[in-house]
């Protein structure tokens, strides 16, 4: 139904364009006055008047059709059946009605469910047809209206350009809308979470056991939502990752900027960039398939046991992924140091190494720090590697040989397969998401500040 509607609208837009163009040509051929705008612009004008209102209508309609029909449906359900139901149970009932309406027969459905399902599908059909009729009418009205306005004096080009500017502004607002959507949704769900679990407990608690009670009177009914072990695990893994990535990336950058020949650089740089282009799910599988057994075997040969999902494995593999980040950002920072500083150092008789460590690195330090911070923000936000290679049980430890969990792992495990939004378990994921968002934002802002400040020094 919907695809036919879109197809019909598309055809109407094309028709509108053709009609407008043709009419403009006809007017231009007969009239004594020269047309203000080219015929194409008249065509575009008609097309815009056909397309934009009808598409806006369709989008708004689709947005509200579901909720409105649900609301109407709840209104018609027998009072004695609905009263006393919690929101979750009501949702369950509604989804049961919907799946009956979709033809998935439940083993035993009450009479009122069947009749509600029948009503539901009837209303949906009515709504679909109403939308179809309304959208087509609006589109046709658009054609008629626009056709009328076509004349030699009509400034079609200016109007079309205004519409285009409007569309461009609307598009650029999407970035703001996205950020707003992220902040609003995270904040909204987090506030609901903090209604159930105190924010102080969340931020300072040492115990993370997000369970939902199966029975009302269960002891662990509330679960424990102290996020400190989760943060600690995130930091530990990020620390391991940076311990791997920073020296390798930095030394690689030094060699590439100061020692390597142009040819060597041209081969090695893209090779290192490949590391950054590999999807993280691949790194996760690599960690499980190769790195974890290798490290375990090595540890066993050395005479001690480490967990297969230790922080060392996840952090180490994440470090590999971050090498090109550090190396290319440090590379940029070192290369941006003015040549005069190098020349001055060489003129004093310093070796290349001395120039690098004593002149270039201090001068490039803010840029390098910025790069490292950006990598840190990557490391705390990284998801798939830790989901596959790190633990899911939160333990407060700073031993990299033990499994720890991270914020992103918790978000994924709490939310995969769960869509009920009324228990603290799923809402906790949003609270963690909010903290993750704020933390990465903060680190990024600091990093960008440092980088910008440093740039100003030499410009």
């Amino acid at each position, binding site marked *: 139904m919907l695809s036919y509607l879109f197809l019909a609208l598309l055809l109407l837009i094309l028709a509108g364009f053709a009609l407008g163009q043709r009419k403009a040509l006809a007017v231009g051929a007969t009239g004594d006055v020269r047309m203000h705008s080219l015929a194409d612009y008249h065509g575009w004008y008609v097309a815009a008047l056909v397309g934009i209102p009808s598409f806006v209508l369709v989008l708004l309609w689709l*947005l509200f059709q579901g909720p409105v029909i649900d609301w109407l449906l709840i209104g018609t359900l027998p009072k004695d059946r609905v009263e006393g139901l919690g929101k979750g149970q009501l949702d369950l009932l509604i989804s049961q009605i919907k799946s009956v309406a979709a033809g998935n027969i439940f083993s035993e459905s009450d009479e009122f469910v069947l009749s509600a399902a029948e009503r539901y599908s009837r209303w949906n059909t009515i709504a679909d047809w109403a939308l179809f009729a309304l959208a087509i009418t609006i589109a046709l009205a658009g054609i008629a209206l626009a056709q009328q306005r076509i004349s030699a004096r009509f400034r079609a080009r200016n109007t079309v350009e205004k519409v285009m500017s409007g569309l461009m502004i609307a598009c650029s607002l999407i970035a*703001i809308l996205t950020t707003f959507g992220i902040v609003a949704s995270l904040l909204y769900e987090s506030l609901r979470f903090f209604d159930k679990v105190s924010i102080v407990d969340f931020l300072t608690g040492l115990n993370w056991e997000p369970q939902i009670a199966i029975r009302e009177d269960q002891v662990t009914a509330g679960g424990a939502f102290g996020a400190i072990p989760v943060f600690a695990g995130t930091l530990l893994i990020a620390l391991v990752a940076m311990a791997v990535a920073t020296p390798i990336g930095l030394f690689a950058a030094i060699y590439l900027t100061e020692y390597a020949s142009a040819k060597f650089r041209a081969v090695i740089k893209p090779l290192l960039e490949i590391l950054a282009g590999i*999807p993280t799910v691949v790194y996760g599988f690599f960690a499980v398939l190769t790195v974890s057994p290798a490290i375990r075997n090595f540890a066993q040969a050395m005479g001690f046991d480490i967990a297969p999902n230790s922080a060392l494995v996840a952090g180490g593999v994440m470090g590999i992924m971050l090498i090109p980040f550090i190396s290319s950002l440090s590379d940029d920072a070192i290369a941006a140091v003015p040549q005069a500083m190098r020349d001055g150092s060489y003129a004093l008789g310093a070796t290349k*190494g001395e120039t690098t460590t004593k002149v270039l690195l201090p001068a490039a330090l803010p840029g390098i720090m910025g790069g490292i911070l950006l990598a840190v923000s990557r490391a705390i936000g990284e998801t798939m590697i830790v989901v596959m290679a790190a633990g899911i049980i939160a333990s407060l430890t700073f031993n990299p040989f033990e499994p720890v969990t991270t914020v992103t792992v918790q978000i994924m495990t709490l939310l995969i397969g769960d869509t009920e939004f009324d228990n603290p378990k799923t809402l906790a994921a949003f609270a963690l998401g909010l903290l993750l968002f704020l933390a990465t934002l903060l680190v990024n802002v600091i990093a960008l500040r440092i980088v910008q400040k440093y740039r100003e020094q030499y410009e």
Partner: protein
Amino acid sequence: MSDGIAQSPGVPARESCWGSDAAKRRVRRRYGADRRLQIYGLGSIGLAVALLGILFSSLIFSGYVAFVTTKVGLKIYLDPNIIDQADPGAANYRKMTRSAFFAYFPEVTSPKERRQLAKLLSRGAQYVVRDYVVAHPEEIGNLVEIKVPLSDPFDQLYKGVIPAEIDALSGDRIELFNVLKRGGVLHVENDKAFAKADIYINQADVPEGDVEAADYQRMVNEAFRAFYMRARTLAYEEILSDQAAAAVKARVLADPGLVGKTIQINLPLSEHYDNLARTGEAKVLNPRFSSKKDLEWFDSLKKRGLLSTPFTWELFVNADSRFPELAGLSGALTGSFLALLVCFLLSFPIGIATALYLEEFASKNRWTDLIEVNINNLAAVPSVVFGLLGLAVFLNAFGLPRSAPLVGGIVLSLMTLPTIIVATRAALKAVPPSIREGGYGVGASKHQVMLHHVLPLAMPGILTGTIIGLARALGETAPLLLIGMNAFIPSIENMGLLQPAMALPTQIFSWADSPERGFVSRTSAAILILLAFLIIMNAIAVFLRHRVERKW
């Protein structure tokens, strides 16, 4: 400044001659430091490249076997009495397939054995036959040869991924065993291995002189504690056969006077350690196979040349399956394609419009600054947060269907937008002002200059950025998992923008989680295919950048 170089009293004058040994040493040290820095740099690069190599080679090594499947050729008579011409899919293909397979083993007749024998075949073998018949209805009535896959363990065995027998004892157990061996405790006699032990028949363990009821196991354990140094976690008792205590008992019963004395006795070893002592290895049947008989049947098939390993077209043609030998990627590829299509259709026009507005039309003010900050910020937001956004806004607030490629595409497009916007702005900036001025010079409006001249010239650069952005979107996993795009899709017939779907990276994730051994190589193969797509996309981007983009 002459003070600066004046010698302080008491400090010997520094050798000022550049040729002196001390000066040479200093120079050598300084250049040594220089060389060390170079070596660290080269070492780091070498390490990074080596890690990249290990990553690829381990994937290839583990994945290449998934590109072939072990199949057995079955001669099946497509009986027109069983198969209905009008509805060929409805016949009992399970029975047909099995009886064709049993024909290779006429000696196996009991139902129990036949059930076990049937486990050699993939449980999806019948569907392979069914699909063949449905595709070739003209063959009904003929005797056809159809190759059907073996079940996962035998597939892996034939390809040499897993062995038929594995070591019965773990490495640390063998190590413990070697401690005993080095201690000269073990010896082989009459094709049987024994441990020589000095056992102290402790009076305390013989309650009231009753040698019948004495705790001989304890005495044996005490005697062996000397050897087990670091074996606290290992069951060192398991080295000895459970007959060991009985042997001691027999000896003491024969001569009760031994109580309180130390006896020297040969204790029998348990089965695996006995094998290890005699032959140097202890093997057991790989637990993936239920009995030795399975392997005999398998060997017989192999010897008769009935097995072959053709290329696994199923990997591309089939959708997901619970049986690794039948699982394919077509569902995941379709899902990824649909999601990327939505992503492209949204992010490409929106990205270009945004970039065009910010770069060419907007005046610098607080609004545009805010937009720019937002775009830069979005590029750094962790992908899982976009998943949360999709879950809370698109699924919960807007009520869009779960697991649908439409939602996946929308979320991916939000993540791709910053990349496209940045690339477009760079490409627009690269178009020289002379083009614009030429346009204005002949009286074009600003929109006309942009749309007719600047944008077409910037298009290769924009496409490069778009392809790179889409390549990144293709590998994105976390947001798709959060909106449920990891549905189990056994058939691609009903796939659409609003139907549940699977994407390539989420398929990799769910296969990587599956316990069957065959999914390990399937996962690696899926990763190789994903990487191949990424390499192709990036190669196109590089080609565009070097060949099509104009340098002004």
